[in-house]
């Protein structure tokens, strides 16, 4: 298996992890709505995962950039830009005092990210298979 194959195998795994993170976020948000968890605990829990998620995604994008996978890189660049923008504006962390006011926005964002990771998961899988086939040829 060549470099491209390994890269996309790694990308598939990362996308799966990110996918699960988003599912976890969404479950936690609906828990909050149902009053199973209080906003302080929720924010403490989720805030642990915010930066790792962003870093993991940025790292993956960097890998694409370095290995010259332009299409994959361009696919991910907007999200990296969005994340960086959020960190610059210092509103990437969940704020327990505002969480109920912003909950619908957070949920929407998580769903969009979930969809994005899902699409990219299948794209990476497809690319991985392509790479493997082209190698075996």
């Amino acid at each position: 298996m060549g470099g491209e194959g390994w890269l996309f195998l790694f990308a598939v795994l990362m996308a799966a992890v990110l996918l699960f993170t988003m599912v976890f976020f969404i479950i936690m948000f609906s828990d909050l709505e149902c009053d199973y968890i209080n906003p302080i605990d929720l924010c403490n829990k989720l805030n642990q995962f915010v930066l790792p998620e962003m870093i993991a995604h940025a790292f993956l994008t960097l890998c694409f950039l370095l290995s010259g996978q332009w299409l994959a890189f361009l696919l991910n660049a907007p999200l990296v830009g969005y994340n960086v923008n959020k960190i610059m504006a210092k509103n990437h962390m969940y704020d327990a005092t505002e969480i109920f006011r912003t909950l619908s926005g957070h949920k929407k964002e998580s769903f969009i990210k979930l969809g994005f990771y899902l699409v990219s998961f299948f794209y990476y899988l497809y690319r991985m298979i392509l790479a493997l086939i082209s190698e075996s040829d």
Partner: protein
Amino acid sequence: MSQEVMLPQGWEARWDAQSNAYVYVEQSTGRSQWEVPTQPSYGSSHPSTSPAPTPAAAPSQGQSHRPGRRQYPTAQIQQVYGGGGYDTQPQQSLAAPGYPDQNASQQPQYFTPGLGGADAHQPSHGQQPAASPYGGAAPAQSQQPGYGQQQSAYGSQQQQQQPVDQMSNQFQQMNMGYQGGAGAGAGMSGQKQLHQIQTVNLIGMQPDVTGLDTPPPPYLLPPNASVTASPHIQPDPSYQRCTLTSMPTTQSLLNKSKLPLALVMAPYRSFRESDGEDPVPVIEDSVIARCRRCRAYINPFVTFIEGGNRWKCCMCGLSNEVPQLFDWNQVENKPADRWARKELNHSVVEFIAPTEYMVRPPQPPVYAFVIDVSQQAVQSGMVAVAARTILESLDNIPNADSRTKVAIIAVSTSLHFFSLPAGATEASMLVVSDLSDVFLPKPVDLLVNLTESRPALESLLGRLSDMFQDSHVVGNALGSALQAAHQLIGKIGGKIIALTATLPTLGEGALKARDDPKLLGTSKESSLLNAASSFYKTFAIECSKQQVAVDMFLFSTSYTDVATLSCLPRYTAGQTYLYPGFNASRSEDAIKFATEFGKVLAMPIGLEAVIRVRATRGIRMSAFHGNFFIRSTDLLALPVVPTDQNYVIELQLEDDIKGSFVVLQTAILHTTCYGERRIRVITQAMPTTDSIPELYASADQVAIATYLTNKAVERSMSHSLDDARNTVTNKLGEMLGVYKNQVTSSSGASAQLAVPENLKLLPLLCCGLVKHVGLREGSSIPPDLRSYAQALLTTLPCQSLVPFIHPRFYSLHNMSPEAGNIGDAGIVLPQALNLTSERLERHGLFLIEDGQNIFIWVGHEAVPRLIQDVFDLPSYGELQGGKYTLPVLDNPFSQRVNNIVAKTRELRRGVYRPHVYVVKSDAEPALRSWALSLLIEDRMDHMSSYAQYLTTVKNKVNGS
């Protein structure tokens, strides 16, 4: 559906096996009859599911066979009605000529299609017999004494009169049934009360400013909505009011009408006996009837069913058992009158909660004072005034059971703790200079019992200012001091009162002076209104968890970042107080601060509180505004409830509403400062409507203005001030646009701006709001003042908020002769004028006040006599503008002016004591333009005048 509820209370249906028919037994007398003892219209449906039809029970066996519990209603009725039982019901209708009216008007309701299914019929019917006798006893009824006499006479002659009564009873019921039947169709329109809609055209008219005090449109509840006819079944608007006094039945109707739906409440408002206000009635016997499913508290709008043994929740419709002791007077150990219970007669009541409502034993009130003793603070005199005020207030701090605890921490570049051992006469100081990892220097004696350590405390407060007199320390480690105070009182919870004269510059939560004048007036200005450091938010959450509230007293001579520091009070249910340019050597400043601080200390606070609003199924609380922490989707946590603080709660309709009225109930569970767990319950019922004109006719302009204020402030922080102002104006335009198209049904452009009569001052309030210091356009307003104004806008109760947005303006030199003198209701205030400088005369004396400041405007051609009379100065030229204390002189005019100022200061609930500023009409441009900026009907800088504002709104209306 049990049919037994169709019977008047006190009657029971029994199955007689011999005759194969129901026999009706009156429980109190044992009298029986075959006819259904209720309106014939209902009698037609035979009781088929009557509980426990004991076949063998002969009619004459009466009450002796029934289990004891079921006798309570009967016993209680006997108690009240002299043994007459429910025979008094028909009797009353006969005896009181005024009553057939009431009955007749009630009757069609049973056939109102709008009432929905049998569910809706049943409650109103079941309660009717219960409600009417009480109605007779209501204080408003003038026949009451006569009724009482007749009744006792009746009680003794019962046997003879019975047949007659019974006959007339039936006759009357037949008659009523007939009316009802006939009125089934026609009765609908006649029965449902509607608000009168009057359209007013605003353009070219001077607004009538006296209309700001008019009460909101009445709640036109269907008759029989409440079980008692008490006049107190709706809360005073100062406790709770709704932007609409009738509830739309669907969310789409609400969306279409563009009207906001929100509750505006100040549930823990203070009361003043001097204003003729009553304290909240307290239910002492801790019998708390709550719905099993929705946990609503019993209130005047429930219905009693099954002979009064069960009650049906007015919110979810679940039938609940009436608690055994509900009709029992536990003090005198005898049956009590259910209809006299306070929770069935008052919309605002307080229950004394039993131990199930406590997480821990009631905590004592705890006060931790964090006092800034840096050089600036000491020099401004703040420390001295604060210490003296605390010393003088030691007797007023709530301490009814001698459990109150106090701690004092002085802070500059290091933390100064004071050890105040019980019984000692001197305090000893412990200094901690490690600011990064705050620790308490001593485990005990820092937080002390107020009564036990009083001598040490007094001596400390007496010399606190002197102790730091010579310190030249610059710097303030407020954040660390707050953390220390939190450690100190966190185990118990309570209140931290922080007094600071400088920006926190050291330790945790250090802030920078970020007030860049270049940002003012730009879209970036809103960043100055948001917190600069996340420390104050995270710390606020910590505090809220541990039931600690923070009050901030800020004394700035320069920038103190009110926006950031006010985060702490905002999320811990405290309050921010700002004294810009405080200097205690000016007696006005010292008196203002000492008075307000003293009132805050003496405030009967509630501790460890949660607020929850419950409502009829279908209504959801969607957003919350105010000083608290939202702990779950509908639970507001307030470590300390201050009096007179306002909260706004937005409502949404999730489902269509079926009933003829809805009930909204606010419950605030708190510990009083004398160690009692209590629940204050505020119940409000609103009729429903499905018409947009009716919604407009029932809109409450003051509540809508309060709602818009909160929305605008929120918007100014999340977006920009420009956005916030547009939100207000657009919302107003949308509302009036819908009104124009849907209600006045005029289409196309119109030269007039049509508003409903009850909203005619809303445009004026909106105009005042967009020109208010908190939201105003301009690049000259310091961010501190803006933030503070916004903090006030979101916390002031309606009574103070309205003048804060729309100040009062009086002309003093030509006021009517009774103004300023003592009239029937205290000191008479002059006629309020329109807020326009057209009213200012060059020779006149005027007063403008917004609840926070009083401006006395002196025209430059004022005659020397006037100046002499009021200020005791020879001429206008001698007069100095600025903060002023009016002398009390020995002439009637001076006394009247002083009376008006004094009355203005105590006019409203709350702790604020406005400054008096004397404004000369030709000097001190800053002060002059400040006073003029309160005249909101005028054009100022590039802000539009009221007339221009109306034109803008009109264009929006025509454009839509």
